[in-house]
């Protein structure tokens, strides 16, 4: 099932609505150009996941800078941001976040919302699945983009269970796109 846009955990089928398979960064262009406020959500697994010479927290920092995105760290990932000296991240619980995003007027902990696009990775697969279900079903104003390696059906765009190497390559391409697009 690698490289197919089917739920990574095999039982986690959802409903009729399902994400589009993100295989080329370019497909995001349209949505990116329409988005006004972007939020990057980074979960507890990010510090332990390698990317390039650093980890997925470093990637978040880079992405945030490139795309001028606010960052919310969940599940304690904030500690890694702080340790890396990054000031732009705030902490919130994943479940709180999934809830508050449903409010189209919610300004977020940075006070700069409401957001109309989120990029997300780093929570346990199944937990992100439920978070995104909340967003998909009750926050239609938000375009959710899942940046984890495995397919998240409740996003608008999600990688189709990428091979590891390709995954990291496309992440870098997205970083470029986001940076270039703004």
């Amino acid at each position, binding site marked *: 099932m690698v490289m197919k846009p089917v739920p990574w955990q095999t039982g986690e089928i959802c409903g009729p609505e399902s994400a589009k398979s993100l295989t080329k960064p370019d497909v995001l262009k349209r949505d990116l150009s329409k988005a006004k406020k972007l939020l990057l959500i980074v979960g507890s697994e990010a510090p332990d996941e390698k990317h390039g010479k650093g980890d997925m927290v470093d990637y978040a920092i880079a992405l945030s800078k490139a795309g001028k995105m606010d960052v919310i760290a969940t599940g304690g990932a904030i500690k890694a941001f702080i340790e890396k000296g990054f000031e732009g991240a705030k902490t919130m619980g994943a479940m709180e976040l999934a809830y508050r995003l*449903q409010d189209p007027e919610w300004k977020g902990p940075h006070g700069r919302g409401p957001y109309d696009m989120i990029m997300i990775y780093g929570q346990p697969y199944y937990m992100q699945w439920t978070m995104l279900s909340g967003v998909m079903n009750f926050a239609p104003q938000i375009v959710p983009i899942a940046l984890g390696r495995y397919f998240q059906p409740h996003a608008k765009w999600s990688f189709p269970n990428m091979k590891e190497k390709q995954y990291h390559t496309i992440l870098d391409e997205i970083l470029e796109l986001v940076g270039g697009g703004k």
Partner: protein
Amino acid sequence: MDDSQPYYGAMFEGTSPRTGTDFRMKKKAYFKADEADTGLGKFKGLEVRIGTIVDDEWDEPMGPTPMPGPTTLRSWDHKILTKYQPSYMPYCQVCCLCTMGKCDLSGDKRGACGIDIKGQQARIVLAAANIGCAAHLAHSRHLIDHLIEEHGPRTELMQGPGTEIHAPVTRLVTGMRPRTLEDASLILDYCETQMTHTLSATATGQEGSWMDFESKVFHAGMIDQLSMEIADLAQVSTLGMPMADPDAPLVESGIGMMDMDKAIILTIGHNIVPAASITDYITEKRLNDQAEVGGMCCTAWDITRRDPKAKVVGPISWQLRFIRSGRADVVVVDEQCVRTDVVREAKKVHAPVISTSDKAVMGLPDRSDDPPESIIKELVSGKIDGCYISDHSIVGEVATKVAIALKPSRRKMKFFPSKKAIQKMAEDCKKCSECIRACPNDQNVMEAVLAAQTGNMEPLREVYKNCIGCARCESACPNDYDLHSWMVVAGEADCEDEKYMVRTGRGAIQDTEIRHVGQPIVFGEIPGVIAHVGCANYPSGGDDVHHMAEEFAKRRYIIVTSGCAAISMGHVRDENGQSIYERRSGAFDAGCVVNVGSCVANSHIAGAAIKIAAIFAKRNLRGNYAEIADYIHHRVGAVGISWGAMSQKAASIAAGFWRLGVPVIVGPHGSKYRRMLLGKADNERDWMVYDARTGERVPTAPGPEHLFYAAETVAEANVLTAKLVLRPNDTGKGRSIKLSHYIDIHETYYGFFPEDIWKYIRRETDIPITLKDKILAQMKENKWKERKIPDPTLLKEQVIGGGA
């Protein structure tokens, strides 16, 4: 007369649960005195049905809501549900409950019955809560029926010394003091009626509003709590278990503790009755040197409560590893938390299975009416893989004799492959990832198998540690590898080393203990009561439970526990080889670890909170639910944690706490309960309360901030726990203690000073002294203003003088 009020014999006729009129004044005239004479021969039956119902000796006045119906407490529920609104995360966008479906409920679509997706999620939550409630309630009913049979209906119910306010949940909900098993039976009648009502609301074409579904979820949770209290009360009263005893015995626990020189009888489940029949038989026949009994799940606690020689093997997720290890010579299952493939698994290791419960017959042939000798023969010979025996009195004999007979031959068998064999088999791995995709904990089983190809078993051993023993990886593997067994082999040494002493369940909390800690809890000086309960669906091993408990125990919070969490908590040894139970006292006091017992015993945790209101604040409990819940919600800094919450029962247990206003944290898998109950900290209006002294609406800090929350990590859970114990009623001293811990924990796990301390400062006395400067700066930055400390309540009627 309110029609939603059910009719229970002569008990409540003429009484409106809303008006609160003393029901004893209102017996109706349709009972003719002469009828009592005519039927003299029938009295025996009659008399039994009542017992202490008309409790003329109880001078506590009846509260407004004895035996509430499904909507009696609706307005209280709506208050709570307005403050903590459901955040739904649909686990499925369609509904498949009737043949007009499947209905697509995505977007703003509605089903053919008119329901929308929020209503549907709430309905599923209600269905789950009902199933969970039914599990405890049916268990309770079975116990009561059995004990009445055995001991007679007039058998007295007791919770032990220092528990004058016995059965606090029952008093609160029903307005009754259950004094005998017969009373208990009547209360279960009430519970069953209520459960039928709430379940019926899930039918197609009944309830339509998420708010009303959720209110019924609370109702089911309350009924669940009640039925659990009755169950534990009954078993404690009759089966020789510790009675509210802080010094309940330490018992042996862990796979390594099982004495393989004896025949091993494994009991799995929740219902003590068949298991007790085994330990009783062994004791009576003096077979202790030949056979021993180990329990898994709640049965483990209850057999060791009855017989401390029995052993606690492990929590639910240990079932498969223990069965597969072949250590058990016979497996006796009762009800709840039994692997449904137990017969298939036990057969692999030639261990017969005895099912003893009509809830889990497992397709086995019924041998209930056969003589023990013939059953034993069939089981020992392997003619049948197991059998169903509904007569518990013979289970002890059958199980023991079969185990003893089978032991010699079974000890010669080998059930696990060798590491070598595993290495060999692993070579054919297809690298298909199916094992990873199947794993609920996303364990990299494939990598571990690939490592095993080279003889490196360490990765498999690592997986074992995070594994909930579900075997989904196996059934997904196209090569049919026994992957879970492989992990157990890789972790063999850890298994052998699983030797712990754990304190068995003590039962209720004593009134005297409450008297001692009531004030410090309500004033906030004991910073909180943290209850670890529930199942073992841990995201990364059971050690986390120990870690969380120890983190707060060492800070002098009171730790209470029950069920599988209580087992996991004890399965860590410190540098001195001691478990948390050996290190810490079992009293209900600061820094102690109180194991109340099996899941049904966790009603004592709610009971303790209720008793605080009665003892410290002298509030009436009797039929006075909303007032007491309001009291607990605003004053008792209790938090429930069910880190491995898994089942429908965990959902209904949580719901019982919600209705009492007690927040519950679950582990990340708990997000699959598909709805949280969340507050909005920044929404000032949500945190307004009445000041009972003045009737004014006054703001408070958001505490407790959430009512139901799935935390992603231990770090998040710890930070949240520290925060959720905050209550509007904290004194200055109490608040400052709670805040110090919150700050310290926040800094430890999140790496920085929390930014919301200022919100929780009402006046200067709230500020922890050592951090004063930092906090003052934060206060200034946020334009802090002094606030008053109200006598907080959400109930207008609690305002002195009626809140006019």
